[in-house]
């Protein structure tokens, strides 16, 4: 047995050297405009884009009144500038396809009560049905915490996590590969175009929420409670195609999980008066107009519920519509 352990250790060390050397070559050898590693798998994410911009703008040592977190629904639909106009300092840490499996390490490694007394977590059924791979690929490359990246890579229980970490380590000094034209600052991305077509009817089937994602969502609730961070769970406006049985599965789950926690679930999915044609950039995401209207609606609710207080305002409220976004970062 001792011999096996000794040989296995030598084997693994040898493998580690070969793996890192081969990975380093593939990650830096250009081929048809991109490093060769891109040819070996479709899950690699290169440093850059709005997630990179967002996390390099965010300073975890600066106090925020609230941090918004969640998937692309969050970073496209919750406009921090509307909060700022109302006197609240808010940053948006949403990222592509971010699921509770990714949200948990972000809260763990980026947020504490002293700098973030309130977390607004956007949810929709899609984040509970994916495996978290897309978001892990994005966040392992684009957010600055090695510990958070390691937690996410481990959580997917897949060798792709190891490759993502290797890519992170071997490209950490590389400049961002690209930036997003839609990034406005404070973590927010604004899409001005409207979908301008009727929404299809919702699918007539429900969905099955992943047990892994439910576990991490419930862990997020526990973590916020332990850290004394107040949590609000929200779902933003939705087009007709998303107002169906699948969403009912989510609301039933939220009702069951949040019932005794005192955490409010502000569900705007079926709000009256939603403009399916002009408030959305596509079937799922709000556009600039929709985000501004929705965020105003949300701030009203948070104030009326006493979750955001007038006296806690960190910035002077601006007159509506006078917000200067270019100065944000």
């Amino acid at each position: 047995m001792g011999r096996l352990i000794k040989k296995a250790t030598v084997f693994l060390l040898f493998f580690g050297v070969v793996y890192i050397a081969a990975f380093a070559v593939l990650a830096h050898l250009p081929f048809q405009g991109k490093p060769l590693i891109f040819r070996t798998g479709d899950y690699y994410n290169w440093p850059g884009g709005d997630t990179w911009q967002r996390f390099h703008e965010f300073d975890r040592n600066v106090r925020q009144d609230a941090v918004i977190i969640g998937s692309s629904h969050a970073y496209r639909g919750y406009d921090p500038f509307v909060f700022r106009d109302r006197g609240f300092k808010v940053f948006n840490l949403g990222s592509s396809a971010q699921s509770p499996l990714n949200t948990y390490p972000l809260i763990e490694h980026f947020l504490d009560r002293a700098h973030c007394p309130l977390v607004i977590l956007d949810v929709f059924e899609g984040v509970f049905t994916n495996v978290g791979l897309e978001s892990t690929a994005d966040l392992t490359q684009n957010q600055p915490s090695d510990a958070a990246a390691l937690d996410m890579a481990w959580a997917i229980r897949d060798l792709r996590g190891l490759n993502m970490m290797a890519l992170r380590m071997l490209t950490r000094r590389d400049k961002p590969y690209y930036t997003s034209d839609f990034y406005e600052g404070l973590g927010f991305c604004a899409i001005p175009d409207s979908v301008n077509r009727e929404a299809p009817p919702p699918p007539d089937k429900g969905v099955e929420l992943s047990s892994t994602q439910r576990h991490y969502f419930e862990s997020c609730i526990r973590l916020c409670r332990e850290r004394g961070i107040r949590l609000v769970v929200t779902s933003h406006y939705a087009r007709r195609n998303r107002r169906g049985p699948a969403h009912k599965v989510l609301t039933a789950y939220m009702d069951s999980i949040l019932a005794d926690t005192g955490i409010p679930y502000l569900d705007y999915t079926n709000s009256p008066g939603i403009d399916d044609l002009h408030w959305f950039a596509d079937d799922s995401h709000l556009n600039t107009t929709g985000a501004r209207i929705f965020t105003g609606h949300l701030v009203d609710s948070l104030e009326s519920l006493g979750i955001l207080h007038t006296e806690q305002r960190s910035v002077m409220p601006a007159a509506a519509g006078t917000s200067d976004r270019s100065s944000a970062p």
Partner: protein
Amino acid sequence: MLFNSFQFLCIFFPLVTGLYFMVPKNRRWAVLLAASCWFYMAFVPVYILILGFTIGVDYFAGIWIDKSEGAKRKWLLSASIVANLSVLAFFKYFNFLNESIAEAIRAMGFHYGVPDLGIILPIGLSFHTFQSLSYTIEVYRKHQKAEHRFGIFALYVMFYPQLVAGPIERPENLLNQINSRKEGWGMRSNFDYARVVAGLQQMLWGFFKKVVIADRCAVVVDQVYSHPDHYGSLSIALATYLFAVQIYCDFSGYTDIALGAARVMGFNLMVNFRTPYRSASISEFWGRWHISLSSWFRDYLYIPLGGNRVVKWRWYYNLMIVFLLSGLWHGADWTYVIWGGLHGSYLILAIVCAPMMARFSGLIGLDNRPKLKHALNVFITVQLVSFAWIFFRADNIHIAERLVHRIFSTPMALSDLRLLFADLPRSMLDVTVALVALFILIDPVYDGWIKGERRVPSGLAGMSLFVALLAGILLFGYFGSTTFIYFQF
């Protein structure tokens, strides 16, 4: 539980293997039986009851057959076969038969009201049914003593490495190893460094075949086979050749992991593959492909039917029956029946045409060039086998018919391959084809090392070969929850 899952690799296998070597040798069977139950119940827990039924029937059948004499033995064997095949027929073939009858009756303009029961096939049912049957048949033939310890017999049927996709073991091999009284062999093996390393190397080779080759090929194959009218002859042919590689790597990869896991614990399971695409005839192919199934059909069906020691027409009939049933064994669909029928026809045609082919071969001088003749025969065999795979892979008979029609009716155009290239995830096609080409070169070499037919270089050189495999898995593997093709059977 899949062999390529985190749960198996990081929890189940190390834990079970560690426990196996830690407990006293006379208690190891209990560890393996409990582990096998855990392994099987990770799929659909309630289906262990079906497995329990099969085990119960054959356990008592074996004991009673052993004790009985004369016609009663035959009667008991028949009862065991009927009970086993009834379970198989109900879970595997009810829906197929029901649908086929319904289609035929509706075609005649009548109403048919028997509903589809929506039965889900218990995983590995065909494999463990055949393995269990081989025990009662061998007891009946007095080649095997009946096993009186229920736990040992249950372990023979449930031994986790080969429980869900074979090899379909025989009692004289596996049961005797489980029952071993010989120190250092089978269940009484000691921790042997060389054997453990050889087992782990075999598992690694199996993972390489599955994750790097089979699962990558699957992406291309699935794209073409799910859009039969979208692609032309070149893409369909390419996808079909890739499926030939995929199914080989998927199934032989699974088998290598199974054999490797068993080898680590001191068990030698049957060899199931011997580089089958190097066969120079269909008959040789079946001696190298899924050997445990083909030998099962040979020993328990073909030879009892008379084999080749009968008049010619009866020989052909025997061959066709065996291959049609072999097709049906794989799946309850006409596509599998046609696949089996094609292989049966190939074999019959080879026998019928043998004198003519021999004359032709002599006439064109091929007999003087044995290497060229062999290469030509291998090439023809691969074409025939690949053609039959179209029916095996197609989701239904209509898709198979469309694919065959398009292979022969659409012109060969490079634009067709460009279309396929554009439809796939980035770099999928070119990297896959390059890896398959590399695999074709290294397969005979690694296969020889794994089976002990070639000597693995010693020291750093030997280690480098397996380090390269592991690095290849990480760098070029196609990951995700991909199951093994033969699990469905």
